[in-house]
């Protein structure tokens, strides 16, 4: 699969038909990532957006040397990942989904020893640890044990550790999963600052707002394949709609109503998920009132209506017919 938006400048991450098949003792083997081709440009935040099980984490695993590809190739910073994992590890910083902080060490020591692993001398690592704690607003927790940290702080420390050795590429796997909204915003700010400093970031997420807010380009993934790859704005424009209407039908008649509304003139697309019918209107200003009337004419009662601009989630639903959260 090749994309019209394939980067023209030298890509810092490139994959070619990258595939991972997990053999299973019971039942058929699972193709987690299926002939993936992508390129990430220097300095961009590139998002892999998809539901759980789409193959995002496996993709990151292969790019960060922890998962051995079944076939295909991957290059990070020009280095073939499977041929030279050590050279690859020198160029990347990784924040996995769960906390891999060293719980036998304090907050400060986590950073200090990370610096030492990556070749810093004692003095250099000490300074880097101090500065990084300051920068990530964790200086007052320097001597704390890892288990004393809140989820948000632990996540900040993970990112601080991952960038301590100034990697060319930072991988963030579901960086805000499980965080409260406030910590999530704080983390977005951190990621934004790193981006402003020119850090190349590949992040995975199943939060469409996160992909929308943070990413320069987004690849929408499902079943190990890329369904679409572009800037969030272009992806949303591709829907051909300016308004997303969410209607909750009375009596849970979601499928019936969706079927009925498909015939509405002015609907670019209709989907039914999660007890809600979503209608993408080409022109919301003139279409909304007529749409409601159309539903009423079909004999459908309505308990709730909401309108928004089409989101990346709408793009995903439009591509797959299912909800991101499913």
């Amino acid at each position, binding site marked *: 699969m090749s994309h019209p938006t394939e980067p023209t400048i030298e890509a810092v991450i490139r994959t070619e038909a990258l595939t991972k098949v*997990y053999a299973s003792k019971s039942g058929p083997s699972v193709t987690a990532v299926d002939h993936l081709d992508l390129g990430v440009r220097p300095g961009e935040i590139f998002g892999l957006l998809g539901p759980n099980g789409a193959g995002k984490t*496996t993709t990151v*695993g292969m790019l*960060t040397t*922890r*998962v*051995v590809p*079944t076939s295909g*190739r991957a290059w990070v910073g020009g280095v*073939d990942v*499977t*041929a*030279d*994992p*050590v050279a690859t*590890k*020198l160029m990347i910083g*990784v924040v*996995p989904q*769960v*906390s*891999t*902080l*060293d*719980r*036998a*060490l304090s907050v400060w*020591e986590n950073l200090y*020893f*990370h610096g*030492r*692993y*990556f*070749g810093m001398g004692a003095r250099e690592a000490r300074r880097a640890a101090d500065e990084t704690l300051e920068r990530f607003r964790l200086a007052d927790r320097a001597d704390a044990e890892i288990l004393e940290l809140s989820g948000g702080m632990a996540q900040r420390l993970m990112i601080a550790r991952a960038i301590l050795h100034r990697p060319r590429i930072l991988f963030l796997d579901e960086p805000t999963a499980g965080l409260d909204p406030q910590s999530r915003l704080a983390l977005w700010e951190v990621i934004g600052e790193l981006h402003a400093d020119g850090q190349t970031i590949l992040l995975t997420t199943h939060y469409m707002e996160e992909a929308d807010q943070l990413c320069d380009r987004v690849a929408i993934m499902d079943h190990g394949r890329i369904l679409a790859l572009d800037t969030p704005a272009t992806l949303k424009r591709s829907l051909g709609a300016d308004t997303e209407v969410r209607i909750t039908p009375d009596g849970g008649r979601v499928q019936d109503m969706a079927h009925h509304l498909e015939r509405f003139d002015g609907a670019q697309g209709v989907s039914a998920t999660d007890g809600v019918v979503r209608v993408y209107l080409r022109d919301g200003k003139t279409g909304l009132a007529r749409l409601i009337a159309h539903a009423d004419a079909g004999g459908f009662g309505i308990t709730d209506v909401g309108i928004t601009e089409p989101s990346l989630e709408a793009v995903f639903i439009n591509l797959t017919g299912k909800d991101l959260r499913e």
Partner: protein
Amino acid sequence: MTTTERRAARRAEAGQPYRGWPGLRASPTKGEVVAFRALLIRDVQVLRKTFVAFLMRTVTQPLLIVFVFAYVFPKIGQGVGGSGAGATLFSTSLMPGLIGVAVVFQGIQAVTIPLVSEFGYTREIEDRVMAPLPIWAVAVGKIVSGAIQSGLAALIVVPFALWIPSTPVHVDLNWLALVTVAPLACVLAGALGLAIGTRAEPGQIPMVFGIIVIPMTMLGAAYYPWERLDAIEWLKWAVLINPLIYISEGFRMALTDIPHMSAFGIYGALVGFTIGLSWLGISGFTKRVLA
């Protein structure tokens, strides 16, 4: 195609011959040496922070064994190994055995226990394996770190084994044997810890202590010289699968004049077990880390 063959094919395609273990070269790069050393320094720092716990788990068992068998028993006239010369023989024989137990016990404690959480739910191990060195080198680091802690445990146990028994302990030092047996025994213990920690499921580790470690120490010729098992012929041969036998007998050879297994047998088995367990541990580690 097996995984190995696939990897070899990929390497060939990338213009690089397959070299057995990925990243294995004739000589490591400077960065790899630095990273390896840093991993060890990290372990030493953790040991420093938890030194009291380390002391307690090192000392408690041998202290109690020496106290009960070599102090209380002779005092109350319930001899182990008889009285008089027999008691002296027992406390002398016990000293190298206790050192052996301390070495093995500590090697397993120092390597296996951390692996339970490192391979557990959070996969903390991914922090260590993202360090810029080959995965197998991280595993070797674990063995080395375990060996260092085993050696330290041996040193700590010596005074207890020497001075607590109520009957005198006869030390007959063979330096050459000591400086060869001790490091081998310590590396073997670290490798054993890695093999257990990577081949058993994290949830099984507590059970492993009960059904492997305790029998190992009880049947490891720690509390009696192996030669004396002549009286129970089948047991004498059955216990040879236990690596602690060779460690206890090795220390017996190095520290006492008590009859011991042949030096050839001791060194052969120590080297053999070290290689075998290292291979089992390192390959188990790699298998666990790589998906």
